[in-house]
């Protein structure tokens, strides 16, 4: 029996480390493509593939360009798991010639080892897609949680809203970034401070989630804080660039709090 092939598409090889652990234990043939610009996509990697797991950012249209390119090369029976936490699975599926093969998932787990995954079906999903995804998850030992398709799924959406509120508080000089994070960890047992979390997942990702909510619902409730917008424009996207709400050493440790960020960020 030939081994089934999984192709991972990521912007950074480390993104899928927790998934890699899961698939290593199974008899899959695994391929990983790191794509930072659409030209880097090697079409030969798609040959003989059974599952594609894609987590590319919506920023700079990378996700859309790559999916538009590989869509026509993916046979209809191939399952495409796409990280749709920055938008909606229905929108991502609409870029494909076979939108019914897509399942949206949340890649945001705070844990190094994942046991659960949040999944969503786009409106265009084929009737058998859910069963296919369930079987695939079962093979990997992952428990799937199915939710309706809405921007940001569950955890990324709730936490982006918390981070937005924390950024508003910082912008209004209510307290320092470190004190806001400390308050949420000690006062209400959060696993991580909301601003440290934004730095970790990327301030741009948080902003993309909020922008998607804002554009979808058109409610004031979802408007992204000005500070977040300015940070992204200024390239202060967090840990991966060394600067966000905190400053980081090359080893990723916090070395300082960005002092008076709300005054310093000038565009």
């Amino acid at each position, binding site marked *: 029996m030939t081994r089934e092939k999984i192709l991972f598409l990521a912007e950074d090889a480390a993104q899928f480390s927790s998934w890699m652990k899961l698939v290593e234990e199974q008899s899959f043939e695994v391929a990983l493509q790191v794509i930072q610009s659409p030209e880097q996509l090697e079409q030969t990697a798609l040959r003989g593939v059974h599952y594609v797991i894609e987590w590319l950012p919506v920023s700079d249209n990378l996700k859309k360009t790559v999916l538009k390119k590989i869509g026509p090369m993916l046979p209809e029976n191939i399952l495409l798991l796409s990280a749709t936490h920055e938008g909606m699975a229905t929108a991502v599926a609409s870029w494909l010639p076979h939108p019914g093969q897509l399942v949206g998932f*949340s890649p*945001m*787990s*705070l*844990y190094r080892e994942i*046991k*659960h*995954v*949040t999944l969503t079906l786009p409106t265009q999903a084929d009737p058998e897609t859910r069963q296919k995804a369930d079987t695939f998850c079962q093979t990997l030992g992952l428990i799937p*949680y*199915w*939710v*309706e398709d*809405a921007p940001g799924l*569950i*955890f990324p*959406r*709730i*936490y982006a*809203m*918390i981070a*937005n*509120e*924390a950024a*508003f*508080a910082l912008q*209004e*000089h*209510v*307290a*320092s970034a470190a*004190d*806001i994070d*400390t*308050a*949420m960890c*000690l*006062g*209400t*047992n*959060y*696993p*991580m401070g*909301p601003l440290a979390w934004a730095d970790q997942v990327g301030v741009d990702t948080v902003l993309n989630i909020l922008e998607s909510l804002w554009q979808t619902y058109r*409610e*004031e*409730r979802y408007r992204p804080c000005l500070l977040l917008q300015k940070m992204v424009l200024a390239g202060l996207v967090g840990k991966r660039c060394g600067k966000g709400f905190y400053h980081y050493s090359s080893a990723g440790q916090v070395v300082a709090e960005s002092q008076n960020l709300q005054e310093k960020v000038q565009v």
Partner: protein
Amino acid sequence: MTKTFKTVGVIGSGTMGAGIAQVLALSGYKTILYDLNSDILKAAFQRIEKTIQKGIERQKLPENALAILGENLKTTMVLEDFRHAAELVIEAVPEEMSIKQKLFEQLDQICPPETFLASNTSSFSITALASITKRPQRFAGMHFFNPVPLMTLVEVIQGKQTDMEYCEQLCDLAKSLGKTPVKVKDTPGFIVNRVARAFYGEAIRLLGDGVADVATIDTIMREEGGFRMGPFELMDLIGIDINYAVTQSVYEAYFQEPRFKPHWIQQQMVAAGHLGRKSGQGFYHYDS
């Protein structure tokens, strides 16, 4: 000028007041706990003793903790006792403006001008409470979290007119109690009650929109998000009525900022008497 508080008054012997009095007394401060009558005070004292007894059994507190308590904690039903006795008086009475208004008017008359005042309020403006007194520069917020002996956070709130130095002294006091103080500018909900609105509010919104059910949202927040409890479990624990009241209060205080808008689901749960664990039914059912 660095002033160390030696004797601290605590007004109100409910859960918060008793907890504050306990940590003060055990940290070596002469503590005077005030309440309206002797029955309430006696009950509070017994609750504190019981908590400490448990702490000793679990080896979280030293063997002589009860002796330290006995030595440092006094109770009184006479507000005039604070005239000369305390350098700092912390208010922890019920969250009703009329009660606080009357109390601070009295305290302002009784206590000499150099006495510092603090409020443990979670919902009222410190600036507004300070304005009741003639010493707004000596008035600050000192917001403890429940249960006080276990929760290490203290929000020290600077009102519009509060002296910065006084806030620093309250931070030092909090540290001496083994707590972690954070400095907060007086704004509705301070940090925790404001930022945490999104945790509950967005979860209810997801429920209302039919994106997922209660159990699914809670599980995802625990398993994917690393939260100890999901938003609905936590609302059931806090009390849906209490949580709804905090949301309404922050929403109104920010002049109906849409981010804090309450949801009809909360109102409906309260109307139905489904208040959470305490009523046996909330977002989940509980057996007795």
